[in-house]
């Protein structure tokens, strides 16, 4: 195994830094933070332009939400219907209870077919299962073929966004990475030039590949087929060139009928990037002559989430990332600060289900402003669930005790009006008379912020004064 491979495994398995600490490191570079923030807001804006062209947008969201609610309430039956039809279509179906089972199934297929040239298009599920580092340990190198994913793979980094994997990088970074790995001209930062270099490099990989792994956007129970959406065409280049195609899907990717694709394909790309539809929406039903087609259906905690009434509707997610792009915290902390395959607001409600202890920080990475909920195309109540996870995590003992003490202290003060008034008066006096007491590093609020100017009078005093004067009149 090369040093690079070993580095890759180390990066993927190293201990995660909590969100707040990672975010602090991210915003250390102010200019870059502003750029990240603006770039993602630009994508959110494109989403708005696309959405506003459809007067029926809200009805579409409602329809999608209801289809998903229905599907989840009948999930076992739809999974069986899908399996039956897929088998009839000549597709082999595998079931994986967890990430390990998923990885083992894929390794087994690779070994059985005696192949070693594997390409993979974007699949957040395989990221969630840490498939690449697992296969690398077994001596199998997987080439990620989505441009953004190839860039982060060269850099031994995980994707920072589920739709735009390399959104944390600037073109100078990509240029340097490609110079090292593809021998492109040093300092040539032209995206056109860099994309062309990747095209040539990956064309060879496609032509040589023996086995292709793809994700699944939608799996249709009534036909046993599945749909994969890309703009680059990389999923198709891989799947149609290789002798073996493995498509990996979470159990929540099921939709009952083909006609439902009309609803979801209208929502997906508009929500994700503001496009009317992705360039390619590929419908796979049967392997081509001489080809093997496999589907791996993965649970990995999803049925557990299904059993949590407050959180089950997070399984409606279609992975558009609209909630990422709109989130004021995501935009200013970057995807890596979430230390999980799916970052952003949706990641913050999915990941505590996978590992409560390791991901207890994520539901706190939010202002609960609710923008995520407003843009979600399938109407997941994301900000409500963030708030509910906080209660669960506190009850389960996964929240820092200092947070609890602070909350208890605040509750006590708020419950005692005289104490509250006294504290307010003291606070205002201190801020005016000895500002150094609050304008220092010990005060977390003072970090990256100025303290507000302290008024001489509280609102209550002002109100009482005013009433006194008007009574005199």
């Amino acid at each position, binding site marked *: 195994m090369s040093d690079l491979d070993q580095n890759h495994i180390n990066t993927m398995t190293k201990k995660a830094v909590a969100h707040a600490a990672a975010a602090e490191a991210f915003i250390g570079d102010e200019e870059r933070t502003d750029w990240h923030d603006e770039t993602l807001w630009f994508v959110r804006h494109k989403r708005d332009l696309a959405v506003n062209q459809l007067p029926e947008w809200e009805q579409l969201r409602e329809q999608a939400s209801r289809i998903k609610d229905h599907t989840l309430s*009948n999930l076992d039956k739809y999974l069986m219907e899908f399996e039956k039809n897929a088998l009839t279509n000549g597709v082999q179906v595998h079931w994986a209870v967890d990430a390990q089972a998923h990885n083992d199934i894929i390794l087994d297929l690779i070994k059985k077919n005696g192949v070693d040239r594997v390409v993979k298009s974007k699949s957040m599920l395989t990221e969630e299962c840490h498939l690449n580092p697992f296969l690398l340990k077994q001596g199998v190198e997987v080439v990620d073929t989505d441009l953004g994913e190839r*860039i982060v793979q060269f850099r031994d980094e995980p994707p920072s966004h589920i739709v735009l994997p390399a959104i944390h990088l600037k073109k100078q970074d990509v240029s340097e990475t490609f110079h090292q790995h593809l021998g492109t001209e040093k300092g040539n930062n032209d995206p056109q030039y860099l994309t062309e270099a990747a095209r040539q490099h990956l064309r060879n990989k496609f032509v040589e590949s023996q086995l292709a792994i793809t994700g699944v956007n939608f799996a249709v129970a009534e036909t046993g087929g599945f749909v994969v959406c890309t703009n680059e065409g990389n999923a198709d280049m891989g799947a149609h060139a290789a002798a073996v195609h493995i498509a990996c899907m979470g159990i929540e990717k099921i939709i009952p009928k083909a006609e439902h694709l009309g609803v979801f394909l209208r929502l997906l790309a508009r929500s994700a990037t503001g496009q009317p*539809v992705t360039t*390619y929406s590929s419908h796979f039903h049967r392997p*081509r002559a001489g080809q093997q087609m496999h589907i791996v259906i993965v649970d990995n905690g999803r*049925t557990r989430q299904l059993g949590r009434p407050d959180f089950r509707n997070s399984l409606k997610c279609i992975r558009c990332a609209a909630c990422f792009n709109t989130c004021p915290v995501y935009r200013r902390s970057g995807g890596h600060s979430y230390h999980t395959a799916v970052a952003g607001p949706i990641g913050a409600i999915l990941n505590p289900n996978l590992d409560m202890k390791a991901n207890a920080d994520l539901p706190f990475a939010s202002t609960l402003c609710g923008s995520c909920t407003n843009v979600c195309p399938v109407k997941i109540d994301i900000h409500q669930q963030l708030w509910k996870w906080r209660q669960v995590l506190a009850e389960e003992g996964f929240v820092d005790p200092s947070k609890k003490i602070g909350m208890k202290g605040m509750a006590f003060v708020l419950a005692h009006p005289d104490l509250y008034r006294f504290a307010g008066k003291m606070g205002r006096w201190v801020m005016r008379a000895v500002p150094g007491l609050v304008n220092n590093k010990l005060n977390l609020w003072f970090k990256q912020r100025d303290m507000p100017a302290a008024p001489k009078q509280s609102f209550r005093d002002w109100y009482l004064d005013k009433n006194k004067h008007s009574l005199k009149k």
Partner: protein
Amino acid sequence: MPGRETILNAARKNKPAFIEAPPAWAEGASIAPEQLTQKFIKTLESIGGKVIQCNDYDPIRAKLQEQLATGRFIANTIQGLGATSTEVQTNSNAQSLEPVEMAFIAGTLAVAENGAVWVYESQLLNRLLPFICQHLVLVVSRETLVSTMHAAYRKLDIAAEGYGVFIAGPSKTADIEQSLVIGAHGARSLLVYLVGGTEI
């Protein structure tokens, strides 16, 4: 398969009480029939495609002849345009198709709201062809235009063949700093001939 039973049992046990499916989508606010062509053209051009309207196959035949004359590997899968390419077979591999410069393929229907054209596997001859070619030409009848994806799925039988695809524009990416680059892995350009009245 123990995994299968474990998953299905857990789903059965943990799913909420049955919720009815909503009624099928009732088309509302769709595009007026006389605006379909303009909407399709405008949308496809906004996502990097080009559209040529014509009344019959003559301009397309001329385009094919002009391309064949260059001596490069031009793949034609449309019988109505003349001889189809013998080099493109269902089982042609990636290596043999990699040099395809331009492919001419017929589409089944076109969608006005998003500029997408549906193509069945039987129209492609080889699943890889529309992706591996450098430039793609799709030919679709104007009569097939529908307003939205709902209407498209009502007309299509997605499971009729082993594979089918909606193609909307050339291959593209914005993975480097959100700068749009046309020609990621698939075709670098898409030209759609919208043929008036003529059935393909």
